[in-house]
């Protein structure tokens, strides 16, 4: 009944994202799964920023004003790509998919283990994915934050066809990516459909699994990547947020995807990854207020990588900094500038009250309570499955194993996120939401934003190509393969 509407709803952003990624990575051939999966996130963010632009210009939110210019934009990118394609040969960032592993001659028992392993993992994934889709599309919008903020705003934007009421809505200073894409969904569906507006979330889940799997497959091999995905979905919090219309799922999507793309840039040297990471970072700042703090964290991660980059000249390092900083900070600042200068919100006593830093010596009494609240949530409650137990075991392995930059960076990222929230709990009134009486309403949702880094670290640390000899493929290397040698292969 709604098939053509849904095709437009999902198809246009994905095509747009795909075209943009092809443009950014022109001259390179990316893994299809990675490109397709990331296309969804890129496209949805583009739709949201375009709607923001329309809203600022006081133009109506109609299918025509949103879809037609973007379709034209898509056509222009298509033409550029077509023109570029005929001029240059594309370099692959992956070895041939047929490259066999030298020692992959399997006996019957190995074959049995291989089949059992994949059947278990795929069944687990398929069952939970079916559940996610059923749940998301059969249960209406019902959760607290959705009803009081994000879905309410989207509903108001949809019926008013504008964001003129934004300053009158509750929590007007909150960023708008999720309300905008829900409005887009409703516009495509032609009505405010209480169940189908949530279709964005299970597809976001599929897209995120795709990015994570592709990332892990590049870093390890198919079997370990599959294991990583299985660990990711043991978290009930991760699954349930793919079915309700909270903003935390997309906050996690953009934050963790940005970090994965940053690591892919490190591995490949291709600036397209850096640009995509930067775009995802900026998009994250348009999902929740926390996103602005995450921009700074991801910027620190980038700085660490850029400053320690071997073989890169100072000019190249500066250029990398421009590539990362400009898009992410420009996107982040655009909404803040709009809030302060055009919307002229009076934030005193509202959102700032929760984050105003006040430190007194008596706050030190909070330290054990904060540590206990974090440990209890990570290890004893049911939100994360056994992911944090696996993290603890992986830390033991990490201590005794040769360390890679990827592992170090993931650990640093986790450390920075935990440190940020430790100090937020210590020095602000958000203590109550993170470690105080109402911590059950806030802490787990905050931890969700960077939870996927845990399975990534576990897999990268435990990876042993001979322990699960299940992959037919070699561990992937990012050496560009080019028929015509090109001096500018690594654009670091």
């Amino acid at each position, binding site marked *: 009944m709604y098939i053509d509407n849904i095709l437009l709803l999902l198809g246009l952003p994905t095509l747009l994202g795909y075209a943009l990624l092809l443009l950014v990575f022109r001259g390179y051939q990316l893994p299809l799964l990675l490109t397709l999966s990331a296309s969804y996130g890129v496209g949805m963010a583009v739709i949201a920023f375009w709607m923001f632009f329309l809203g600022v210009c006081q133009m109506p939110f109609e299918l025509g004003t949103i879809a037609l210019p973007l379709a034209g934009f898509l056509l222009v990118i298509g033409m550029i790509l077509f023109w570029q394609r005929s001029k240059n040969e594309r370099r692959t960032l992956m070895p041939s998919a047929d490259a066999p592993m030298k020692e992959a001659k399997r006996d019957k028992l190995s074959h049995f283990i291989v089949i059992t392993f994949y059947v278990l993992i795929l069944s687990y994934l398929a*069952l939970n994915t079916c*559940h996610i889709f059923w749940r998301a599309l*059969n249960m209406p919008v*019902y959760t607290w934050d959705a009803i009081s903020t994000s879905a309410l705003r989207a509903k108001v934007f949809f019926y008013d066809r504008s964001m003129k*009421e934004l300053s009158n809505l509750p929590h007007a200073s909150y960023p708008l990516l999720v309300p905008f894409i829900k409005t887009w969904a409703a516009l495509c569906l032609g009505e405010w459909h209480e169940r189908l507006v949530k279709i964005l979330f299970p597809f976001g889940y599929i897209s995120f699994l795709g990015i994570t799997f592709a990332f892990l497959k590049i870093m390890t091999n198919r079997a370990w990547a599959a294991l990583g995905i299985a660990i990711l979905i043991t978290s009930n919090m991760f699954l349930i947020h793919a079915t309700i219309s909270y903003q935390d799922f997309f906050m996690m999507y953009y934050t963790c995807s940005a970090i994965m793309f940053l690591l892919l840039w490190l591995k490949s040297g291709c600036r397209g990854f850096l640009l995509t990471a930067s775009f995802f970072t900026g998009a994250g700042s348009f999902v929740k207020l926390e996103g602005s703090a995450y921009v700074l964290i991801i910027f620190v991660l980038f700085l660490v990588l850029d400053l320690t980059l071997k073989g890169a000249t100072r000019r190249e390092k500066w250029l990398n900094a421009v590539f990362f900083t400009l898009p992410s900070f420009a996107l982040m600042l655009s909404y803040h500038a709009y809030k302060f200068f055009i919307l002229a919100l009076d934030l005193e006593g509202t959102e700032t009250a929760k984050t105003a830093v006040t430190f007194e010596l008596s706050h030190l009494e909070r330290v054990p309570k904060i540590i206990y609240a974090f440990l209890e949530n990570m290890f*004893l409650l*049911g939100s994360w*499955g056994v992911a944090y137990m696996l993290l603890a075991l992986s830390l033991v392995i990490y201590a005794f194993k040769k360390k890679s930059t990827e592992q170090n960076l993931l650990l640093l990222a986790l450390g920075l996120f935990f440190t940020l929230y430790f100090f937020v709990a210590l020095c602000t009134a958000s203590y109550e939401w993170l470690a105080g009486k109402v911590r059950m309403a806030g802490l787990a949702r905050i931890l969700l934003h960077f939870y996927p880094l845990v399975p990534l670290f576990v897999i990268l640390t435990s990876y042993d190509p001979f322990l699960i000899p299940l992959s037919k493929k070699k561990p992937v290397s990012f050496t560009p393969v080019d028929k015509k040698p090109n001096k500018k292969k690594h654009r670091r």
Partner: protein
Amino acid sequence: MEDNTPLYKIDSKTILAGALLFSLVMLWAWLFACYQLGYNPLELLGQLRERIYKIEYNNFNEFPVKKLAGVYLLSAFYQVVGTTLFLGLFIVTIFINPFRPTQPISLNRVITIAWIVAFFFFAGLQQLHRFDAFDSEIHQFAGKTTPKRIESIMGKPFTFAYNCSRALKKGLRVYKRSGVDVSKDPHMTYLRNLAYYFYPKISLRFEKEGPVDGILYYLVDDVDKFIPEDHAVACANEDRSFVLSVSKDKWNEYVY
């Protein structure tokens, strides 16, 4: 400290034997945990089915785990994994490694095999409870219309907002009269639900332009006393805890 053990390829028999060994040790550790908690294994399985967390529609901020015999179930699981690791390491290093010098197993590999086995054990157990959740959700929601599904979660605030919205021809501005403190739960939640489901017919979260021609009564005792003479009830729920009145002069303009 780095592990300088070279990465040896392990044959599939060793992998299978390792996985079986760890599974058996883990089963033993689980039985030991049952004994400690004072349950027989079958009884404990039944208790677990009831008490381990599962995806429930009202758990979206956190997944609480019920305790069993005063112990968090996950801490019991960690004990099992810890015991398995310790025993597994002991068996591998003392009994197996000396007899299989061509298949050296490092500490890292033992830990990795142990966590993979523990992970499959946990994920399998957890999936049983996810099936339970799926089953109960299907019973609650499948085959119902969207309003019925919302009603099964939200109850009377939704029913009232839904019926009122259907009764109104166009948008109506209202005064709110409340008999309770709506800044505290559960009334704050109820009022937000009303605001969401009333929109766009009635805007409760922010003011719109136009004359105020209606009054919304929220949990006002003996509500009929407060309805002005020039107003009539446009819709109300059965116990009259929620009532919407509209000016009689504008009745035909707003109400079907």
